[in-house]
């Protein structure tokens, strides 16, 4: 039996026919929409490599059925830069050496964007580490990752202050 769903992926509305209800959001993105920036690490919700934003919130796309997300708005790593202009969190990861091999990086960046939107951590390194604990990095780039989130958060705060001044 075929099920139809609509998704907005990185700003583009997509009508999708699912002939198998078992497809996760992760597999839909990677295998059917050719958005392979979102990575499959453990596929069991333990590593965070598959983190995306769904309706503005970060989740593990490996533990979400696509069929259950009709009408959802999805943002992946491919959807955050503006043309050649990197998203501030992407730029901060480069500036702070927030990665080595890069496999976990899309998930780290999407998780960091989610964390900043949640507004619970601010510029407290301990709260950032706690808030990013769902993203594992086997290269151990954690120090750079925390620095990158701190820098991105500081940039955002500064930009907000400029805007409200």
């Amino acid at each position, binding site marked *: 039996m075929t099920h139809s769903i609509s998704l907005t992926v990185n700003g583009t509305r997509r009508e999708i026919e699912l002939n*198998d*209800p078992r497809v996760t959001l992760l597999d839909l993105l990677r295998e059917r929409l050719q958005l392979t920036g979102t990575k499959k690490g453990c596929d*069991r*919700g333990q590593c965070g490599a598959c983190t995306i934003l769904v309706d503005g919130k970060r989740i*593990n796309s490996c533990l979400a*059925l696509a069929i*259950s997300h009709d009408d959802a708005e999805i943002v992946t790593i491919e959807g955050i830069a503006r043309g050649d202009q990197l998203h501030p969190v992407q730029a901060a990861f480069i500036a702070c050496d927030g990665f080595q091999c890069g496999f976990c990086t899309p998930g780290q960046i999407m998780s960091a964007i*989610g964390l900043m939107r*949640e507004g619970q951590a601010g510029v407290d390194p301990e709260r950032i580490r706690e808030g990013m*604990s769902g993203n594992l990095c086997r290269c151990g780039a954690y120090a750079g990752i925390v620095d990158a989130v701190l820098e991105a958060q500081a940039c955002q705060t500064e930009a907000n202050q400029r805007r409200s001044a």
Partner: protein
Amino acid sequence: MKMFDYVKPATLAEAVAAAAQPGAAYIAAGTNLLDLMKGGVSRPDRLVDVTHLPGLDRIEHLPDGGVRIGALVSNAGLAHNADFAKAYPAVAEALLSGASAQLRNAATVGGNLLQRTRCAYFYDTASRCNKREAGSGCDAREGENRLHAVLGWSATCIATHPSDFCVPLAALDAVVEIEGKNGRRELPLDELYRLPGDTPERDNVLEPGDLIVAVRLPPVSRNFAAHARYLKVRERTSYAFAVVSVAAALQIENGRISEARLALGGVAAKPWRASAAEQVLKGATPDAANFREAAQSALTDAKPSGDNAFKIELARRVMVRALSLAATGTPARMPALPASVFASNSGALHA
């Protein structure tokens, strides 16, 4: 993953009818169920998706002073609801000490209550497990069992219930609202769960088609807001299940404890209410000696189910520390590391 039929009911009644069929299971976020299905541990023929059912995603402050939490409220949505976190700080702290931020954004209240044990032998389909396959045996008894139950276990099953959220809920007399084939009913959370006995394959008393629609906390639970903590020992600082955890909530009047609420996590197949310890504390002064006496009485019936005798003494010490933290007072802001023993003011009692 085994193929399944996908059903998306428009009403509660349709959902109950669809899920009452043999082989059917409800799915909300699926953060536990999909994991189990990928591993072949759960093999439903039909999934009944309840995520779009109306009216189940609200936090309602009731006229009597209680609160009603819809089953589809997310863990993060509840923990970060400012009014809720202020009134029930130990519940918010427990929620934020569980899983990861991504999982908390997806996982729901109802699903949290019904999550399955993380016993490795339950997950490993090559192992014998009476919970996964009734009557097949229990490889945990002679296996790696240092994290298994020390209370309420049986010869057939020594698994623990993994929820953090349920521990303060049990302490604070939460009530579960259930929609079933014969309409709506409610149960104290404590009566939702079954101890393993000879039938560990049944985690709870729910019947086919039963759907948890809400969890309520009674008006008196908010009287503990000034002295309520959750403390959780883990094998790493964050993103790990409890080795042992304690929810401690006190009312302190004129230097004495007028009411105490206590429950343990990670020690049994259900969140373990420590009623005897509460009685020890009622009317007592909030000091180390009384906390130790309470902790002693909470673990009177505990016995190791394997290489886990340490958990009994650990549970006593975590309870003493949780009580000490609760007596000190609920912090004005959620700690950076919720429920962690590594927090800057960890409540350690030194002789």
